[in-house]
C-alpha cells in the first residue's frame, strides 16, 4: 500500500497524555476520541488534522500510559501513518493491533520538516520526501508483526486462531 500525506512534526517523548488527555478516557467511540486528538499538545490541534496527514515524531513516541485511546484517536482523526525515531513499547503494539501503520526511521525524522509531503510504501518501508526529493529506508517489520497486519489486525488474527482451534477440537 502507498500512503501519501502532509506532515505534522513533533519532538521526543510525545506522551499519551499529550495525544489524548486522561479526562477523555471514559470515551471509547473512535469518532468522539478523534475530536480530542493531540489536544493535550495543542488545544486546537484536532481542527488542523486533515484526512491522510502523517505524523513524524522523535524518540519514544507515545510514551506513558497503555491507553489504546491514543492510537485510536490518531487513526480516527484521519492520520494515515506515524513515522518516528522510536516508539514506546505499548504504543507500538497498540498501533499495530488496531492497524495504524508505524515506521521507525531516525534518518527520516532528520530529513522531514513540518508541512512536507511524504510518501510511504508500507510493504517495504521506503519513505519518500516528495517536497525535498529525498528518500529513507525504515526498519522492516518483523515477520510475526507482518502476519498480524496481513490478517488485518489482531482482532482478525485471533478470530482465525479461535476458528482453527474449534475446528481441531471438533
Amino acid at each position, binding site marked *: 500500500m502507498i500512503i501519501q500525506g502532509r506532515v505534522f512534526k513533533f519532538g521526543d517523548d510525545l506522551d499519551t497524555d499529550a495525544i489524548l488527555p486522561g479526562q477523555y478516557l471514559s470515551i471509547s467511540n473512535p469518532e468522539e476520541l478523534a475530536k480530542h486528538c493531540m489536544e*493535550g499538545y495543542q488545544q486546537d490541534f484536532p481542527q488542523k488534522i486533515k484526512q491522510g496527514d502523517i505524523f513524524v515524531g522523535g524518540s519514544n513516541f507515545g510514551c506513558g500510559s497503555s491507553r489504546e485511546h491514543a492510537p485510536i484517536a490518531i487513526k480516527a482523526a484521519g492520520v494515515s501513518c506515524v513515522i518516528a525515531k522510536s516508539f514506546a513499547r505499548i504504543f507500538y503494539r497498540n498501533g499495530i493491533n488496531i492497524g495504524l501503520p508505524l515506521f521507525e526511521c531516525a534518518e527520516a525524522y532528520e530529513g522531514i520538516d513540518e508541512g512536507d509531503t511524504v510518501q510511504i510504501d508500507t510493504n517495504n518501508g521506503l519513505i519518500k520526501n516528495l517536497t525535498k526529493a529525498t528518500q529513507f529506508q525504515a526498519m522492516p517489520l518483523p515477520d510475526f508483526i507482518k502476519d498480524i497486519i496481513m490478517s488485518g489486525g489482531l482482532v482478525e*488474527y485471533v478470530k482465525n486462531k479461535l*476458528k482453527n482451534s474449534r475446528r481441531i477440537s471438533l
Partner: protein
Amino acid sequence: MGYTITEKILLDHTQVKNIKPGDIIQVDVDFIMTNDISGPVSVKQFEKMGAKKVFDIERMAIILDHFTPNKDLSAAEACKTMRNFAEKYGIKNFYDAGSGIEHVIMHEKGYVKPGDLIIGGDSHTVTYGGLGAFSTGVGSTDLAGVMALGKIWLKVPSQLRFVYKGKIPEWVGGKDLIIYTIGQIGTDGARYKTMEFSGEVIKGLEIEDRLTMCNMAIEAGAKNGIIEPDDKTECYMREEIGITDYRVYKSDDDARYEATFEFDVSNLEPQVAVPFSPGNAKGVSEVTGIPIDQVVIGSCTNGRLKDLREAAKILKNNKVHPKVRAIIFPGSKKIYKQALKEGLIDIFINSGAMIAIPGCGVCFGGHMGVLAEGERAVSTTNRNFVGRMGHKSSEVFLSNPAVAAASAIKGVIAHPEEVV
C-alpha cells in the same frame, strides 16, 4: 550461558527451549487484569474476535478504579459495560468502585505470585516485579487477545541490571531510588528492556518500596521491572497473603546483561522529579521553597500502608498550610481500614488533609483534584507530563510521601527535616 530471572520466567512460560533478547515468543499467561478505561475497549474487541468465553475465569480480575465512583455519565456507562461483562462471562474476581487501585488489589488478593507471568491492561502493571513476577502492561486489543487465548506474543527484552550500593540515608526510599535512576538513564533509557534492580540496598528495602520501584520502570520505557524474591518476599507472601506455593527464580551468575549500572546511594537526598518529565530528577534541596497549591499522597506508586505511615509521621501534630489542599487516598479498602485502626486517618484529618476514595482519578487529572491554570502540586504519583493533573500550564512535582507531607505543611516544597 546463564539466564536472568526475567528470561527464566519467560522460558518457563513458552514452548521454545532457548531464548535470547530480540526473539519473538508466544507465552502462556498466568493472570490478566483490566479496569474501567482499557476494559470497555477490550470487551468490544473480545466480542469482535468471536470469542465465546474467557480462557480461564479464575485467572482474570476486573477492577473499576479510574473514574470511580462514576465521575459522569460516560464513566457510568463504561463501568456498567464492565459490570455486565463480569456477570455474563462469570468473572468472580470483580472489584467495584471503592475497592481500591488495581495494582494494589492484585498483590493484596494473591493474584500475583513470584515467578508468575501477568499481563494487565494498564501500563503500571510492571509493579508486580517487586515480588519477583514478570508483569507488563498492554493496550485493550492485546488484552482482548489474551482474554480469548490465554497467550500473548512478547519480544524477549534486553536485560539491564541496576546495582545499588552503600547505606541508604534517612528519608530516602524506593521512590527516590527510582526517580534518581530514571534521571540517570532518561525516560527512554530502558525502552523495550528489563530493569532488574539488585544489590545490598535493594535487599534492605521493604516490599512496598520494591513495588514502588518496579511501578515506575515504565517511566524509563521498560517492558518490566523486577527484583529477585528473597526472605522478605517469602515472609510477605506467607504472612500477608497466605501463599507459599510458587516458583522462585534467580538470575544466574553468568547471565548476560546489555549493561550494568552501579549507584552508590549513601549521599543521595530525597529526589523530586520536576515538570514535565519523570526523568527530570533533582535533589529536594535544589527545589525547596517553590510555592505549591496541592499535595497528593497515594496512588499505585505510593498508596500502601508504609507510605501512609510515613506521611502520618510528618503530619502528626502539624497542620496543612492554609493555602494547600492536601488529598490523601489509601490504595485499597484493606489499607484504608488498617490506616483507620492505626489512627493514621485521624492524624490526616486533624492536620487538615482530606481523605479520598481509593482509586486512580487524582493521579491523571481524571477525577477529583484537578489543577487550575498555573497551579502546582507535589504528588507521590508517577507522572508529571504536561497537563497530567489538569490545566496544561499546571505543574506536578513527583516525590516520596515524606517530602509531600512536609511540603503540605510548609506550603512550599520542603525537606522532611524542616518539620520534624
